[in-house]
């Protein structure tokens, strides 16, 4: 197995242009790795040695769809990067000097067309590999495409968040709505007829964000968002982070040394990839891709997946720590400034779980901010049920998920089925986003976003 993976890596390296211009095989691999980013692991059944994750799901998440199942998409589409100063954010802490403006990407159709607003998953930027894939699909189908980072991406937290504490469904929805309103206003143009309608789509946490964005917009009535499609969304954020933390414990153990070793191995692998490449990315997509060849067992696959989530968590935890002065990894009296070493903070945060973020940063902040809130009410507020009535009654909400979706437990999956009814498609494989980009998945997405989706026979 190891040899096979090594030789696969070898071919990858030898592609002309290396990562910059991957050939088809490289592309497929890149895609598949990309897919795994925001993922987590764990099927509803517990057949695997890890209890949470079955082998096929883990592999799908790291290696992605089989190349022959991939939807044919254009290699690239015209895309413009925009760096925008967002109104209504907080003052920028000095240590985040590089994140003053929000970076988003816009792909414009030559004439009037529907606008698709895409939202990245946990910790993802506006040009994540999964967003690129979705952008290509939607642009090729005739949509203008605007991609936004996740509200949990540090660049979003710093440039656009009104709290600095990411991860609350409603608050993040409000921030996203403010950002989307400003951006659409800027892009719409003077005549205002460039966008024939506006739809929102998100994957993973971005899927829940997309549904929330439409719900908030329905009340505010500013954008007139028509449809929302949630791709592999979480249902209860609290339940999902619990599963993520548990997966890491199961796969790495809860001692710090095991974690450090995994961290070291994966980053060493990443280094070796850079040694033979002109590309250097340090985002999670790339991290997991690099890690693929050292992930030689289910346990290590799961560990790598958990680790890629942890990398996102470290960043947003750090931001929350700075903004709230929680003092977990930084001194509230003397917050770090640009040029200060952050190594110690990084070490501390590397060992913090999602639950620790909830307990030490998130809950204290929102309990103080929302009179009458309790720990239980915060958990309940971060469940899609807060817009459950809308999701049940409004025919313009759609969702996709997988039977072996790792961020959902059985209860969550049943809730999605009951809530979305015929507007939900459940694929029988893929884990978390491991089938993103497959022909059927893309076709269903395009049908959903244009309102012509009809579920085929059960």
């Amino acid at each position, binding site marked *: 197995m*190891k040899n096979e*993976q*090594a030789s696969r*890596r*070898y071919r990858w*390296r*030898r592609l002309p242009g290396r*990562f*910059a211009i991957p050939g088809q095989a490289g592309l497929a691999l890149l895609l598949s790795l990309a897919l795994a980013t925001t993922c987590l692991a764990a099927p509803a059944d517990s057949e695997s040695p890890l209890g949470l994750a079955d082998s096929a799901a883990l592999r799908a998440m790291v290696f992605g769809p089989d190349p022959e199942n991939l939807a044919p998409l254009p290699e690239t589409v015209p895309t413009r990067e925009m760096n925008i100063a967002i109104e209504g954010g907080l003052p920028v802490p000095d*240590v*985040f*000097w*590089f*994140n003053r403006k929000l970076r988003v990407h816009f792909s414009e159709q030559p004439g009037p067309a529907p606008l698709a607003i895409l939202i990245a998953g946990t910790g993802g*930027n506006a*040009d994540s590999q999964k967003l690129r894939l979705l952008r290509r699909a939607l642009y090729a189908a005739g949509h203008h495409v605007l991609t936004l*980072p996740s509200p949990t*991406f*540090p*660049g*979003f937290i*710093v440039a656009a968040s009104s709290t600095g504490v990411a991860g609350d469904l409603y608050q993040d929805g409000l921030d996203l709505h403010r950002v989307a309103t400003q951006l659409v206003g800027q892009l719409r143009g003077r005549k205002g007829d460039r966008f024939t309608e506006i739809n929102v789509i998100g994957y993973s946490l971005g899927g829940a964000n997309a549904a929330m964005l439409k719900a908030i917009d329905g009340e505010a009535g500013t954008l007139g968002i028509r449809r929302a499609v949630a791709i592999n969304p979480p249902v209860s954020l609290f339940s999902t982070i619990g599963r993520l933390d548990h997966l890491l414990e199961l796969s790495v153990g809860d001692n710090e*040394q*095991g974690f*450090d*070793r995994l*961290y*070291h*191995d994966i*980053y*060493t*692998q*990443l*280094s*070796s990839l*850079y*040694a*033979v490449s*002109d*590309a*250097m*990315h*340090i*985002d999670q997509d790339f991290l997991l891709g690099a890690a693929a*060849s*050292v992930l030689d067992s289910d346990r290590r696959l799961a560990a790598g997946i958990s680790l890629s989530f942890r*990398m996102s968590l*470290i*960043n947003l935890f*750090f*931001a929350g720590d700075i903004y709230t002065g929680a003092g977990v990894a930084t001194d509230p009296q003397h917050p770090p400034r*640009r*040029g*200060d*070493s*952050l*190594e110690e*903070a*990084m*070490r501390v945060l590397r060992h913090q779980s999602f639950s620790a973020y909830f307990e030490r940063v998130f809950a204290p902040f929102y309990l103080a901010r929302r009179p009458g809130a309790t720990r239980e009410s915060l958990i309940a507020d971060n469940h899609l049920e807060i817009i459950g009535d809308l999701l049940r009654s409004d025919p313009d909400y759609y969702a996709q998920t997988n039977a072996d979706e790792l961020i959902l437990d059985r209860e969550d999956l049943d809730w999605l089925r009951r809530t979305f009814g015929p507007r939900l498609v459940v694929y029988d494989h893929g884990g978390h986003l491991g089938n993103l980009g497959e022909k059927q998945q893309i076709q269903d997405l395009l049908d959903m976003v244009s309102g012509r989706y009809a579920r085929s026979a059960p």
Partner: protein
Amino acid sequence: MNKIVSAASLALLMAGCASHHPAPPATGQPSATIVEKAAHGAAARGGTAPDCQMESSVADPWEPFNRAVYNFNARFDEAIFLPVSRGYTRILPRPVRSSVTNFFKNLGELGNIVNHGLQGRISGSAHSLSRFLINTTIGIGGLFDPAKPLGLERLPTGFGHTLAHWGAGPGPYLVLPLAGPSSLRDGGGLLFDGTVSYSVNLAGLYQSDHAWALGTTAAIDTRSNVNFRYYASGSPFEYETVRFLYSNMRMIESGVDTALPDGCE
């Protein structure tokens, strides 16, 4: 004076490419070794006192300076380097750009010839010399790379590798203005390679009145071939991460065991 400054920056920039490339394989089968090493590196064990924190293996006594330069580089890249390189990519068609890349890589063969020799690898020198001769003649002054299809793949190396070959440690981590992550050893290596190029003054290019233009083109060519964006990750820990990755990468290239010591599990 002007000439010296431009030649120095030229050397720095041109050599900058070298710092991003793998060391040549001792065996002549570069990448296999590296990939093998990477794939199996985790299995190896070494070191003395167990030190399970990965970052502490990187000596960075000049961190404040390095961070300042890193941030300068990030800003320079965003404001000037990247926009210019994007314009370059937009304006010139791919075949032209790859000829520019080939041209500078061909000039760089000089350093490869010298350094393979200094590392006691005469076959490496001969290999690079053959490439240089073929590409300079049949490849029209280095604009094309006909040597590659003949089985003569580029084997880039530099004085930094030579120093490593003879046992010099990397020394402190060093972030170079414009060129980016390096180490004292590799930075010194760049300077040496630049000086050699300047002294040999191939085709009179390095000491001409237009050396600055050549250097600028080399820099833009290099940038357009490097797929990296400062702070694309949005992470406040990018400096730490890049430092670790760079240092580790150079250790892997130099054949140093990067595995954590025993006692870390």
